C-alpha cells in the first residue's frame, strides 16, 4: 500500500493564481481530511469528507474548496491564492477502529504565495 499520497510536494504561487492540491489514499478509508499547519501551530482542519460525495467545512474553510467524487481522491482547490494561505498542507485518511480514530497522514505540500 502506498498509503496517503500528495502532490505536489512544493509549490510557489503568485497572488490571485489558483491551484489544486491532490490527495489519494489506497486504504479504502471513508474519512478524509485536509489540514493546514502554520509555523509553531498545530494542525487546523480545513475540510473533511465522510465518504464519496459528502464533504463539510472544518475550522478554517475560507478560500478553499474540496470535492470527493471517489473514495480514493480528495483534492483541495485554492481559487484566488493569498499570502495568508502560505502554509504546509496535510491530507489524512482515517477509519474508525471501534475504539478510536486511526489516522494516516500524507507527506504534505509546502505552499508559498508571493
Amino acid at each position, binding site marked *: 500500500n502506498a498509503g496517503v499520497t500528495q502532490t505536489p510536494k512544493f509549490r510557489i504561487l503568485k497572488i490571485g493564481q489558483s491551484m489544486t492540491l491532490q490527495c489519494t489514499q489506497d486504504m479504502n478509508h471513508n474519512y478524509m481530511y485536509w489540514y493546514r499547519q502554520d509555523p509553531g501551530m498545530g*494542525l487546523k482542519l480545513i475540510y473533511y469528507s465522510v465518504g464519496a460525495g459528502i464533504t463539510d*467545512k472544518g475550522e478554517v474553510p475560507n478560500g478553499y474548496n474540496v470535492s470527493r467524487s471517489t473514495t480514493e481522491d480528495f483534492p483541495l482547490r485554492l481559487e484566488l491564492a493569498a499570502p495568508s494561505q502560505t502554509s504546509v498542507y496535510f491530507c489524512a485518511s482515517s477509519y474508525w477502529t471501534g475504539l478510536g480514530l486511526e489516522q494516516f497522514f500524507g507527506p504534505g505540500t509546502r505552499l508559498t504565495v508571493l
Partner: protein
Amino acid sequence: ELKVEQNPLFLSMQEGKNYTIYCNYSTTSDRLYWYRQDPGKSLESLFVLLSNGAVKQEGRLMASLDTKARLSTLHITAAVHDLSATYFCAVDALTQGGSEKLVFGKGTKLTVNP
C-alpha cells in the same frame, strides 16, 4: 469549543535526562492521541489512549491519560538525540455535522543535546 493546550512548547534537554510533556484539554473526551513529527516530515502516530488511567510505553516514551483531570502526559526517560522532534497531542471531537475529528495542540518541539 474544545481547546487542547500543550506545555512546554519548546524543550531543550540533555541526553540522559528525564522530562514530561503535558497536554490539557478543555472538554470531556475519552480518547487522546500522540503524534511525532520530524522536521519537514509528516505526522507519525505514537500512542492512542482510550480510557481513564490508560498507560502506553514504547522505548523511552511513556504516555498516560487522566480523563477526570483532562490531562495526558508524555514522559521521556533517559533522552537520546534520536528523540528530537515535535510532539503533538490530539483529542477526539465531533464536527458540526456529527462526524469524528481530531483537535490538535500546538506541539512541543523537543531538542535533545549531546
